Structures are given as structure tokens and as C-alpha cells.
């Protein structure tokens, strides 16, 4: 089912929104962001509110248009439509608002059938639903035929992933999917994502929680005000953070039984160290890119 995942590539993607009265001004929500996610790879997009992480997710899903730059899945531009959504799906933060409270929760499956698989027999469809529900580690007898209010947030969230699995899913955008869940159910959803990833699905995991990002991701992209601050291999980015902003974020994570530490200031701008650079990011070691730290003497260091 998950063979042939899609390669997501963003190249200097920019999104500008018109803002202000009568659309006179403009706000750049995403500014020249480049990264890629290979099949079977989970990339976490980490940033605070307003960093543009959800806007990127919406652009990948074709819900928002790209202003400039290129965003491709296996070399093809995002072209929203039935064929596109068969392969690319999103799961969002609030599972409760994704369901119509007056219908049973498994109606989301019936809607998929009507739109995408109208010629499948009842019998076969029931088998497929059961398989998808088991794939997300739920007991079909416990969740099918229930109303949304009878299910927990974690169950609803996993049903939405099961719904995506009924399609020909190749790429999943997971936007803050665990932030409304309890600690005990959160891990189940994360482990499920890890399992799907191992079967070849590409996942863009959007979160503000660093510990969840590092738990799953091979690659991490740290965003601030729409720009990439640091990105690359998760171990390298968080094992050896070079940008002061990444350090601040790491220091602010509450850890059990460890007092908050203050972020260690960077000695020198990793981007400008060793001379002037072209481009927004500099590769300090293989698969570890960092932006200019914005220190007072940045750019003036003699080459």
C-alpha cells in the first residue's frame, strides 16, 4: 500500500499574504524556505506560533498557493484535485472539529468510498476499512459505529489516519496532531507514525514541541518568522545547535527533574565564520545547515 512514496522538494518557497486595510500592505509568512523529504523519511518542522510552519503544510497540501519558488512532489507541481488528494493527505490539530457530531465517526470512511472507490463491493469495502483500522492499532469493534463524542481524541486522530490509508497514500502532512492529546495516547499516535514511516511513507511533521520532533524525525527544520534558522540531520541539529535561536528553544523545553538552563551563547556566527557566504544557509558539516546568527560583527569578519 505504501510503496512508491513521494519525494517532497521545496526550493526557495515564499508565501506573501496581503494584509492591512484594503490589502494595501503585505506580510511574508514564509521566506525562501528550501528542504526536502524523501520517501520513508519523517521531517519535523519546528517553530513557535507565527513562524510559518502551518503555512508550509497548507502549501504542500495545495490549500494555499505558493507565491514564488517551487514546491514539487516527485518533480510535479502541487495540483489540488482528486488525483492529488488520493496520494497526499493531511491530519490536523483538532480531531473533534474534523467530525460532524451528528453522524457516526466512521462516516468519514463512507465519504472516501463515495468519492474515490464507488465501484468497490460492500463486502470488500468492509474488509478494507477493517484492515485500515487495524493498521492504526485500533480495535474495529470498539470504534466503528460510534459517534465522535464516544471516542477519545487519540482514537479520533487515529481514525483520520486510517481514512488517509484507505486512499493511495504516499505523503502525509501531520500538523500538530498530538498537541490536543494526553501524554499516554500521544505516544501511541507517534509510534503509529513511526511505523508508517518505516513502511515507506514520507511524513511532514509540524510541531512546536521539540521533544516530540526529535523522537521521530530523521531531519529537522527550525523556523523563525518564516525563515529557516537551522536544518539538517536531527542528531546534528539538536546535538550541536549552532544558531542561538535553536539553543534558546532547546533550553526552554521543560524536562522532568532538570532545572531550566539558560541557553549558552554562541561564540561566533557559524555562518560567517571563515568568510562571506552566498545563499541563506551554510553547510557547516554534511547535512547540517545554519543561517546567520545576526551577531553585531556578522559579515565583517575578514575572510
Amino acid at each position, binding site marked *: 500500500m505504501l510503496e512508491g512514496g513521494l519525494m517532497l522538494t521545496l526550493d526557495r518557497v515564499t508565501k506573501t499574504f496581503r494584509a492591512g486595510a484594503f490589502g494595501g500592505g503585505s506580510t511574508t509568512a514564509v521566506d525562501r524556505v528550501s528542504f526536502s523529504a524523501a520517501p520513508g523519511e519523517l521531517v519535523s518542522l519546528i517553530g513557535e*506560533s507565527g513562524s510559518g510552519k502551518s503555512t508550509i503544510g497548507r502549501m504542500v497540501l495545495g490549500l494555499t498557493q505558493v507565491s514564488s519558488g517551487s514546491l514539487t512532489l516527485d518533480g510535479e507541481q502541487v495540483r489540488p484535485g482528486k488525483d492529488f488528494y488520493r496520494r497526499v493527505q493531511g491530519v490536523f490539530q483538532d480531531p473533534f472539529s474534523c467530525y460532524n457530531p451528528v453522524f457516526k465517526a466512521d462516516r468519514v470512511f463512507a465519504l472516501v468510498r463515495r468519492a474515490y472507490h464507488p465501484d468497490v463491493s460492500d463486502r470488500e469495502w468492509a474488509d478494507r476499512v477493517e484492515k485500515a483500522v487495524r493498521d492504526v492499532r485500533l480495535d474495529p469493534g470498539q470504534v466503528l459505529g460510534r459517534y465522535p463524542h464516544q471516542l477519545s481524541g487519540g482514537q479520533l486522530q487515529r481514525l483520520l489516519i486510517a481514512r488517509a490509508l484507505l486512499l493511495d497514500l504516499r505523503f502525509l502532512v501531520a500538523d500538530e496532531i498530538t498537541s490536543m492529546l494526553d501524554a499516554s495516547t500521544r505516544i501511541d499516535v507517534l509510534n503509529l507514525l*513511526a511505523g508508517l514511516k518505516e513502511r515507506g511513507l514520507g511524513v511532514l511533521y509540524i510541531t512546536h514541541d521539540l521533544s516530540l520532533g526529535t523522537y521521530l524525525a530523521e531531519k529537522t527544520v527550525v523556523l523563525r518568522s518564516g525563515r529557516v534558522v537551522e536544518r539538517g540531520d536531527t542528531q546534528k541539529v539538536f546535538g550541536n545547535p549552532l544558531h542561538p535561536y535553536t539553543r534558546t528553544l532547546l533550553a526552554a523545553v*521543560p524536562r522532568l527533574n532538570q532545572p531550566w538552563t539558560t541557553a549558552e551563547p554562541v561564540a561566533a556566527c557559524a555562518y560567517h565564520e571563515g568568510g562571506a557566504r552566498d545563499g541563506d544557509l551554510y553547510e557547516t558539516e554534511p547535512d547540517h545547515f545554519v543561517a546567520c546568527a545576526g551577531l553585531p560583527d556578522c559579515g565583517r569578519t575578514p575572510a
Partner: protein
Amino acid sequence: MTLTVKDLRVHYRTLRGEVRALDGVGFDLADGEILGLAGESGCGKTTLGKALIRLDGRMRHVGGSVTLDGDELPLSDDRAMNAYRFHKISLVPQYSMSALNPTRRIGRMIRELLASRGVTVDTGELHRRLALVGLEPDVLDRYPIELSGGMKQRAVMVISTLLDPSVLVADEVTSALDVSNQQAVVGALTGLRDKGLVTSMIFVTHDLGLTSHIADSIMVMYAGKLAEKAPTKVLTTEPRHPYTKMLIGSLPQVGARFVDKPLSGIEGSPPSLLNPPAGCRFRARCPLADSGCAEEPPVVEVAPRHTVACWKAA
């Protein structure tokens, strides 16, 4: 002793019967203590916080007592509680965004609020308190929409504590915030306590990691009952109740990786509180449960200030 809660029971009325959201919880809160209240959704932690402030139309005080500074609180008498609200016991709600009146500037809202309690505004003192939580005095001239989520949350904290309450209930105040804002809000709450503007505090959250930074002791609840209560250090390093152990085990730490060591969640979900099962309520999900757990476990003090309700904890 600031606050003493004894065997408190609060039920919700529903069409299908009474939901026993809070079913016999007792604890003490000392002067200057910050108590962290943790547990899954539906364990009764918010109900406990709300019961101390105001029972809404569906809630019914079934039994137990709450004593604050020697006075027993008239929980079920909405009008009599008015004398305590805001003066003695105050609340910082979860969604500060919707707690502020969108059509009033913050300063005017504070003036009107204090006037309704017969108190006049001391501008100098107000500015000092805003500075304590890291806000500039000019927020008073702004509308709520002009503040960020973290600033609104801190503004509500100042408003809630204007009358120096004995107990402040902070209900999930950080769950909608980013890590750096969480740190600022938690710092501000501790500051209010250290400056004596609030005597004691109940910090309700589902985030055990964050609770361990602010709380002096932590109480873990499960399905309307107390599971374990202990000083923070003891609860996080030597938990006795299997539920506490599993809750701590499911916390991802920075640096933990799925490929190295997958964490495990807790199988199953809490029982319905409409007709809760007899005996230990965690036993359906508990790896240690046996036939003895069909009997209700008593709350036992296993060490000084460390109480557990579990047959297997001894």
C-alpha cells in the same frame, strides 16, 4: 494550613444519570505551597479546580468539605461563595483569549472589575504587578486582540491576583503556548507566589515535565480519584503507583528517539464515570492488577507526605 479538602465529591447531572467526575478526593495545601495537579483528560482535575470557584448548573456538590483559612466554603451556595471568589480564591482560566472582554481596553476592564468589588485602582501597584510578569504598563491602553497569547495569559494572571487571594487555581494555563512562552508564564506564576501576592497555588496541567518545574508537590488523579500525591522530587523519581510510573514512562524527553527505544503509551482508556467499576479504577489497564484489586484501595501514607491509593504500592 491554607486549604483542606476532605473527601470532596462533585457529580455532573446528565440525561443518562450522574457522572461522578470527582469521587472522594482529599488533600491539604500548605501556606506558600504550589501543588501540581496532573492526570489524563477526564480524570477530574478541572472539575476539582472549578468546584473551588463556582459550580456551574450541571455540577452538584454531593459530599465532602473544603476549608480555607479556617472557614468552610459554602460550595453549593452560589451567592454565599461570592464573598470568597476573587478575594480569597481566584482562577486563571485555560483560555485567556476568551476570558478577556474584546470590546474593552485592558485598563478599563480592570477598573470596572475592581469597581464591582468596591476597590479602587492603585495605578502604581498595578504597574509593579505588570512588571513582575514582564508586561509593559502600556498594555493597559490596548485591546486584547493587540496582545499575543502569552501576553494575554500573563495579563489575566495579574487581573486574577489583584486582591491577593489565598489560593490561585491555574487551569492548564500553558497548554496553548509555545515553549518559550510557557517558561515565561511559569516564571511569572512563581514570582507571584514568591512576592506573597498569592499565598498558595494549584497548578492544573497534563504536562508532568512542566509541573515538575513549578510545583512543590504533585498530585496525580485517575478517574475522579486520587492516585498518588508526593513532593515533586519523590513523585518523579520514585513513583509508587503503577499509573504514575506509566505516565512518566510515556513522556518523551529531548534526545529520546523512536529508533533507539520506543516509548509505550498506556493501553486502553479510563472507565466511564457514569457507572464506574467497583474497586481500583485503574485495574483494567494496570499490568500488576490481580483479584485483590477488585476491592477499593485505601489512600495510604507510605512515607511522610507521600500518599498512594494502590494495593501494590506497599
